[in-house]
């Protein structure tokens, strides 16, 4: 049995009085590519914000390797979060910094490495995502797909234990989306990183997902859990079936 990396118990997410999702219970195991899926507005990205400690749960608990995220000190929480890499939907690259500086910033902040080595590491991370030659470019000067890849390079900067992806293939053409999927798979393969992907892109979630949950905006809770392919074959819930079998004749 694989070790549990993140455990979510009875999580309720809400904005003031408006409940987004409730009674979420699931575990993310080490080395898994865990997919959070569901239709628009079901709270996928909000769940991501909760997992990243950017928002406090209305109810329930989130454990990172048995440590309750909201019962430890802020310092400890920050330390746990530092071991996470995040690729945001829009890339979220810092616009006043070049790509190289974007990747170098976390390294400068959290390591004592000499400038030369940081530069080398930034080069390596950019090489991993195929962006060598763009070190001096600012985020506004590159295309949407490149921004996402640069975002991934930055997420990889501190060699994270867990990588989070918020809708990695949104706004990408099929070819670039496939490229990103392959990148995710190769990172998982070579580094053994636990990966959490929020997506509703079917080709992508079938291609990479080893485990998943399905969030339903109507019942406001998760209605299925398991590997996406297994869910398609076995899940009897009509909502999940409709979602997963779109385009399948």
């Amino acid at each position: 049995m694989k070790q549990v990396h993140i455990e979510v118990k009875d999580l309720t997410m809400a904005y003031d009085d408006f409940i987004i999702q409730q009674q979420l219970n699931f575990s993310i195991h080490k080395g898994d590519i865990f997919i959070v899926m569901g239709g628009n507005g079901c709270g996928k990205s909000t769940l991501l914000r909760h997992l990243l400690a950017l928002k406090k749960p209305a109810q329930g608990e989130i454990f990172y390797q048995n440590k309750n995220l909201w019962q430890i000190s802020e310092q400890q929480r920050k330390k746990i979060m530092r071991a996470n890499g995040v690729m945001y939907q829009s890339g979220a690259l810092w616009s006043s910094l070049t790509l190289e500086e974007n990747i170098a910033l976390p390294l400068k902040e959290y390591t004592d490495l000499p400038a030369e080595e940081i530069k080398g590491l930034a080069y390596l991370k950019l090489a991993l995502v195929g962006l060598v030659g763009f070190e001096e470019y600012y985020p506004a000067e590159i295309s949407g797909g490149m921004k996402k890849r640069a975002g991934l390079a930055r997420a990889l900067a501190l060699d994270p234990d867990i990588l989070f992806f918020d809708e990695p293939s949104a706004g990408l053409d099929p070819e670039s989306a496939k490229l990103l999927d392959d990148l995710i798979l190769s990172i998982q393969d070579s580094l053994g990183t636990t990966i959490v992907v929020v997506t509703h892109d079917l080709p992508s979630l079938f291609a990479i997902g080893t485990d998943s949950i399905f969030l339903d905006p109507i019942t406001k809770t998760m209605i299925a859990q398991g590997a996406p392919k297994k869910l398609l074959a076995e899940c009897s819930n009509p909502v999940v079936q409709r979602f997963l079998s779109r385009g399948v004749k």
Partner: protein
Amino acid sequence: MGNTVPELKSVIRQLDKLDCVQLDLQGEQLGHWDSRFVLFLFELEKYCKTHNILLNLLDFPAATQGLLKQASAFPVRESGQKNKHELPFLAQLGQDALVFYKQTQTMLTFVGEVCFSSLRLLRGKACFRQRDLWLVMQDCGPKALPIVTLISLLVGLILAFVGAMQLKMFGAQIYVANLVGLGMAREMGAMMTAIIMAGRTGAAFASQLGSMQVNEEIDALKTLGISPVDFLVLPRMLALIFMLPLLCLYADLMGILGGLMVCVTLLDISVVEYLIQTKGALDLNDFIAGLIKSSIFGVLVALSGCLSGMQCGRSSSSVGDAATDAVVAGIVSIVVADATLTVVYQIIDF
């Protein structure tokens, strides 16, 4: 039923009078139709349903039937209509008070965070890039010189004009120099530069941070454990604290120059006379009084700009709102602080 879509109300009125149980509509001769016609049928169908009238649409084009069917296909969200009903006065007052309480709380939290950040800065532990500081300083310092020159020169001119009119009656025109000198050094120099900076730099800070919020850049900093206050707010605040007094001093001189221009051209006072009179009227304390004010205004402009930016929502329209809030909050706080400081100076005889 005529050549155009009949008015629904009159049809309903007729139906009410007839008290019928079935309504057959013949659409065979229907010529050109558009969404208005479908809306008519849609509303009529709704009416018939609630009054238990059987509605038969005979020989209508398939497209109209299709649109009608589609329009009623989705369930109507019961609680979907946003609560538009007006609250009673007291409830509204209570709600506003709660909003005000919440806003005050966020503002104080932000000020607290900035204080902690400043302490970290003093201990040399705050994380921000010096290059950012220089860039912001350049942006809110030298680049603001042209507009500060224009405005303060004109303010000096205006003060001199107003003073000249009155003082001429007593033959005391020379005291225009005192009025302009003191007015600029103690009050107008600091206040006018601060207001210019609130409109120019405060709004820029709010929209920069606001769009970073929209772009999730601030989230990206937080997840890396880098404090957005350290990284984004501190350099902006420091830049304004350093640059505003310098700009203020420059504005003082420009204002005095404006006064000089009026005196020399209109009041037959020589340049030397004016300058000697100004020198006699002013001492270092007057300038210091203005400089202290402008440093405080710098903090206020930076705080209101950055706070509005950090609180910005996640849409592009909220970036505009943030910029507006920053300017309004900036100017109001400048004027309130100025009034308070003037009273305090008066009390401590500064």
